[in-house]
């Protein structure tokens, strides 16, 4: 083929399905005989469930069954309940990343009578229609022995439990701090955030004998299959999890939540498909959150701005039913050259819903604190904040004694600052004005580790002239369908219109979670391997006895633009397969990270430059301009890649200015909806100008990609806070920034 499609702006191959309403998300499946599940949530946050009155609900129209602790399969001990498994019992999932069966919450639904957070399931009504299930669910009444809820991190003095595996230390951070000429000790907080993916969590489960099929809004069909198999005690091959399209997840759909288990049990009980779509309110309670964090940073430098010491000690909330560690300081030892660094992390159990990964988990929270601290250090030194960062550029990964595979942060600084016009910045606070408005300019660095996992893929060159690629990963809106097709097109020369991509089905060759910005780097090498394997198989078929290229060496055949040639004879693969009366030539491959992991440190870097406008007369704060340059290696599809970064910037604006899941002292969320939990909308969106550097990282994989989903959100809220300081002189260390913080007297 003449022009590479890798790196070429490509509209989505699944675009037309999404634009015509034909893309099938989990809740779009309506199965014959289907009934509806509607959960009943706990209204208290801590205590014991001592009674459930189900009579009124049972008498309500259309009710078929009510699933609750009294009829739910018991954990690991036999009883006479016929509901599930041959012994009518359930098991815990091992809940590990290594076994790919991690779940969102280790506790099984209804496992005991304890109530650990508001919205924990106490029952689920199954009825013939959604309306009947919802109406009956509201007739269920519960009696509790209520206990005083452990309040959130910011209302407790509990130090929490040390997460030992998070601790990092090098040099002598304490000694270096004590003797340093310039230093400070500040505390930063990030409010709990909720993912609020547009698509509500949904499950639609069907049993056929001992086989379970479940349509789920999940970022990991393989993980959910494995966890379901463990919980029901059946072989993984008897569980099929399907997620063809996902209304995004941002982490909330990485690991299975209890509603899916209840739905699967209910489907067994009633012998019909059961569809459960969680309400938005329920999504806030029991489908994960970014936990609140409190971070103490002690930072010291010499008078030239050389960092001498960073200590980053953090706490995060977790629930009483799963120990979630938010690795807040994970980026801190790596981003800047500093000889004396320590990081620690503690978990504090509170009666809030169980946290989980949310876009750039841990590191974004840490980056916000660290990047505000860098701005504070620049102020202390009377130095330009960009210059301070330049003076602490890490030539190698300071945490691993490894060279970077590619650290293009300096180019990011140069490019973004030039496009932003940073050299025109007057450093004096409040000095830049436009009419009523005070303009603030701030910047922050962005960074995210490049990760890669195991992946299998299958490719079929088919007699109908089509190429089919199959992999059990997902497209959560990031554009995976399209880049997989681009890869197959690149290697076969077959145009995109004739490439079909199958994702989002646990029966396909096992693919990775759509998370951690690792799906691209993980999936494409396997797809490439399978494509080459299919081409090789095609060549072997072509040279076999009686075949058109009989007697030739396979290596002497070329495969270009979908055609096989020996220099004199040329046949398309469809023509060849047709002559051979074969349906397809098939290839499979498995790909995994290798020894490159011991040679290089793989991390992406970028820089955000932000302009805010503060109108003190009407107390209005707006982000008016964002200029970002990001290096993620190669962008397979610049169209969707840039969209990822722009979207992450928008979510970073939410983190900096709007987003906070708010609980009262009794442990009830009081903004559990899209009106009161504020996210950026069209009217909030400033001019956003993103550039992606094109520095392929071939040390990492043959396509030079490092992944792109998370990096754009890191540092973003800090850049806003730093710009706010420049405009107002108010140093806001608690995210989100509130107008009240800005109008308060100094």
């Amino acid at each position, binding site marked *: 083929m003449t022009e590479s499609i890798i790196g070429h702006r490509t509209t989505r191959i699944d675009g037309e399905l999404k634009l015509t309403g034909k893309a099938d998300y989990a809740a779009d499946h309506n199965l014959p005989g289907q*009934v509806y599940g509607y959960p009943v949530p706990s209204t208290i946050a801590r205590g014991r469930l001592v009674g459930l009155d189900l009579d009124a609900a049972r008498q309500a129209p259309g009710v078929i069954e009510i699933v609750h602790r009294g009829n739910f399969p018991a954990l690991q001990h036999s009883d006479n309940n016929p509901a599930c498994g041959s012994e009518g019992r359930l098991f815990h999932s091992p809940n590990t990343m290594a076994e790919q069966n991690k779940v969102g919450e280790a506790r099984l639904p209804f496992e005991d009578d304890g109530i650990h957070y508001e919205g924990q399931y106490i029952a689920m009504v199954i009825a013939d229609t959604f309306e009947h299930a919802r109406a009956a669910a509201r007739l269920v009444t519960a009696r509790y022995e209520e206990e005083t809820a452990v309040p959130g991190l910011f209302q407790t003095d509990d130090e929490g439990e040390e997460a030992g595996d998070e601790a990092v230390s090098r040099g002598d951070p304490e000694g270096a701090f004590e003797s340093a000429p310039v230093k400070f000790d500040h505390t930063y907080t990030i409010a709990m955030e909720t993912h609020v993916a547009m698509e509500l969590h949904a499950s639609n489960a069907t049993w056929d004998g001992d086989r379970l099929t479940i349509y789920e809004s999940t970022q990991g069909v393989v993980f959910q299959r494995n966890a379901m198999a463990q919980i029901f005690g059946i072989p993984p091959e008897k569980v099929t999890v399907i997620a063809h399209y996902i209304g995004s997840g941002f982490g909330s759909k990485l690991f299975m939540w209890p509603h899916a288990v209840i739905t699967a049990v209910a489907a067994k009980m009633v012998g019909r498909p059961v569809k459960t779509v969680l309400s938005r309110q329920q999504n806030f309670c029991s489908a994960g959150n970014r936990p609140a964090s409190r971070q103490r940073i002690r930072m010291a430098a010499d008078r030239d701005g050389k960092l001498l010491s960073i200590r980053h000690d953090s706490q995060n909330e977790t629930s009483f039913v799963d120990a979630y560690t938010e690795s807040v300081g994970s980026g801190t030892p790596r981003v800047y050259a500093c000889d004396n660094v320590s990081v620690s992390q503690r978990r504090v159990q509170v009666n809030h819903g169980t946290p989980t990964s949310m876009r750039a988990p841990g590191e974004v929270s840490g980056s916000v604190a660290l990047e505000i601290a860098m701005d504070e250090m620049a102020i202390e030194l009377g130095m330009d904040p960009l210059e301070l960062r330049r003076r602490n550029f890490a030539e190698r990964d300071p945490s691993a004694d490894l060279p970077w595979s590619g650290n293009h942060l300096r180019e990011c600084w140069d490019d973004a600052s030039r496009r932003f016009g940073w050299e025109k910045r007057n450093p004096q606070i409040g000095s830049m004005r436009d009419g009523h408005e005070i303009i603030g300019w701030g910047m922050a660095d962005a960074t995210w580790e490049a990760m890669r996992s195991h992946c299998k893929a299958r490719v079929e060159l088919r007699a109908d002239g089509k190429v089919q690629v199959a992999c059990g990963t997902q497209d959560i809106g990031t554009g995976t369908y399209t880049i997989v097709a681009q890869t197959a097109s690149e290697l076969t020369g077959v145009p995109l219109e004739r490439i079909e991509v199958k994702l989002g089905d646990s029966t396909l060759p096992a693919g990775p979670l759509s998370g951690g910005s690792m799906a691209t780097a993980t999936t494409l090498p396997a797809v490439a391997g399978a494509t080459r394997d299919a081409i090789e198989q095609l060549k072997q078929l072509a040279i076999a006895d009686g075949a058109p290229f009989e007697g030739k060496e396979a290596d002497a055949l070329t495969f270009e633009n979908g055609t096989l040639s020996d220099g004199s004879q040329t046949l398309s693969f469809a023509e060849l397969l047709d002559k051979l009366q074969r349906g397809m030539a098939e290839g499979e491959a498995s790909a995994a990270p290798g020894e490159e992991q011991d040679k290089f440190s793989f991390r992406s870097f970028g820089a955000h430059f932000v302009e805010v406008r503060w109108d003190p007369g009407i107390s209005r704060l707006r982000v008016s301009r964002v200029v970002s340059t990001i290096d993620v290696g190669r962008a397979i599809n610049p169209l969707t890649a840039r969209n990822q970064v722009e979207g992450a910037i928008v979510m970073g604006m939410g983190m900096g200015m709007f987003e906070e899941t708010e609980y009262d002292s009794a442990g009830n969320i009081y903004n559990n909806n899209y009106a009161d939990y504020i996210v950026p909308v069209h009217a909030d969106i400033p001019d956003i100008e993103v550039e992606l550097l094109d520095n392929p990282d071939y040390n990492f994989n043959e396509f030079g990609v490092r992944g792109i989903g998370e990096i754009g959100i890191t540092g973003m809220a800090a850049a806003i806070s730093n710009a706010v300081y420049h405009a107002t002189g108010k140093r806001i260390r608690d995210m989100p920034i509130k107008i009240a913080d800005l109008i308060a007297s100094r």
Partner: protein
Amino acid sequence: MMDDSVHSPDDALQPRDASRSSNTVTVSLTLNGEPVTLEVEPNVVLLDALRERLDLTGTKKGCDHGQCGACTVLIDGHSANSCLTLAVMHEGCEITTVEGLARDGQLHPVQEAFLEHDAYQCGYCTAGQMMSTVSMLNDKRIGSDDASVKEAMSGNICRCGAYKNILSAVQSARAKA
């Protein structure tokens, strides 16, 4: 991928006491140009009627409270949150959903613009964004400048944050309309 069988839970099941759930109302309306008759209980919202009874699942539920805009449809040509209105209120109405935008296999100019500008990521809010766009472009009260468009579209949340591309698509569709 989609199940082809049209499924009506009301018909498929035999509730234990049928008399308790026979409280239905007949509604006749025009849906994407076709006449449709529904038998629904009065508390069935239009969104659920479309999705669960008519298998028109292109219209999405994001909040069920009129807060996110994912369920936007056109009712007699005007955009509306289908989660905030009951099916029984639409006797005789003409309702257009995302499934009714393309004609004769040809994408609507708004759909084409969304495709070309990558005005989505996950695609879940997209039907609502497009229906609001179609309505807005026909609304002479709304200015054609970017600020007016952003204000007018702010009832449609895109959590993926593809707002910049949505704006580009809207303005591109306007130019072609």
